[in-house]
């Protein structure tokens, strides 16, 4: 397999956008998987999808049924919106935070479905021999993990840039107050 994860594939820009360097075949793959997920959501009782609709009240079936009534529709709608936004922006070199977040949702949702289907375990020993009937799905599962990781790295660095950015702003503001508090310390002749 080609190792295309050599440099940062999702880069947070200073203006809040993201530069996306995924190759075309990855973009096409994500659109295709999104479309498959969209179709699968028509049958949301499919056991492979159960991780997309977790239980809220573990010990109270009645309350959980109430939760599912309003939450399930919302969870399906928000997933479909993410899939649609991914499909619209799949070929863009630059994405907004909202668009990249949609990509993240689709990749993670598909990963959840695949992981459920493959019944993966946490120990990471999920590699199977190439002749295993699910080999392709395992490879896909791991690829999606790497793609997700790139996306989250990008979103996380933007989140950190935001919180880093707050501090210098505060400092500048404080500096400004000092200056205006002591206007006479400067040279009055400089003012027109």
């Amino acid at each position, binding site marked *: 397999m080609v190792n295309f994860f050599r440099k940062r594939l999702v880069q947070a820009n200073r203006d809040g956008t993201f530069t996306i360097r995924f190759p075309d075949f990855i973009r096409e793959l994500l659109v295709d998987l999104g479309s498959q997920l969209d179709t699968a959501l028509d049958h949301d009782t499919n056991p492979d999808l159960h991780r997309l609709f*977790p239980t*809220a*009240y*573990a010990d109270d079936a009645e309350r959980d049924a109430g*939760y599912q009534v309003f939450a399930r529709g919302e969870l399906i709608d928000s997933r479909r919106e993410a899939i649609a936004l991914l499909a619209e922006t799949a070929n863009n070199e630059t994405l907004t935070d909202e668009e990249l977040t949609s990509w993240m949702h689709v990749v*993670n949702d598909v990963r959840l479905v695949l992981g459920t289907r493959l019944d993966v375990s*946490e120990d990471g020993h999920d590699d199977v021999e190439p002749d295993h009937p699910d080999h392709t799905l395992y490879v896909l599962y791991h690829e999606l*993990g790497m793609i997700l990781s790139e996306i989250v790295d990008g*979103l*996380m660095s933007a989140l950190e840039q935001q919180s880093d950015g707050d501090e210098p702003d505060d400092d500048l503001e404080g500096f400004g107050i000092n200056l205006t508090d002591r206007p006479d310390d400067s040279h009055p002749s400089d003012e027109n």
Partner: protein
Amino acid sequence: MTNTSPVELIEPDLDTVVDEDLPWKVIVWNDPINLMQYVSFVFQKLFGFGKAKAERLMRDVHEKGRAVVSSGTRTEAERDVRRLHSHGLWATMEQDE
């Protein structure tokens, strides 16, 4: 876990009525699929936690099997659970005892 409160006998159906006022807590459970880095990011994004706190909670989920990430009224807890579910995290809510 220890329980230091005195033992009380409460009628079973009284229980559910009186308890409405007690806070609910939102618990995230460990699962074999979600990436640790992703879980930590979701905590930062949804709850505004700093990186250190988000990572500590993520480690609790990973190592202890669960972590309480928020608490509040039933409505607030349900909202947080729903936001976590929309991110594919395995979250439940339960009332403080």
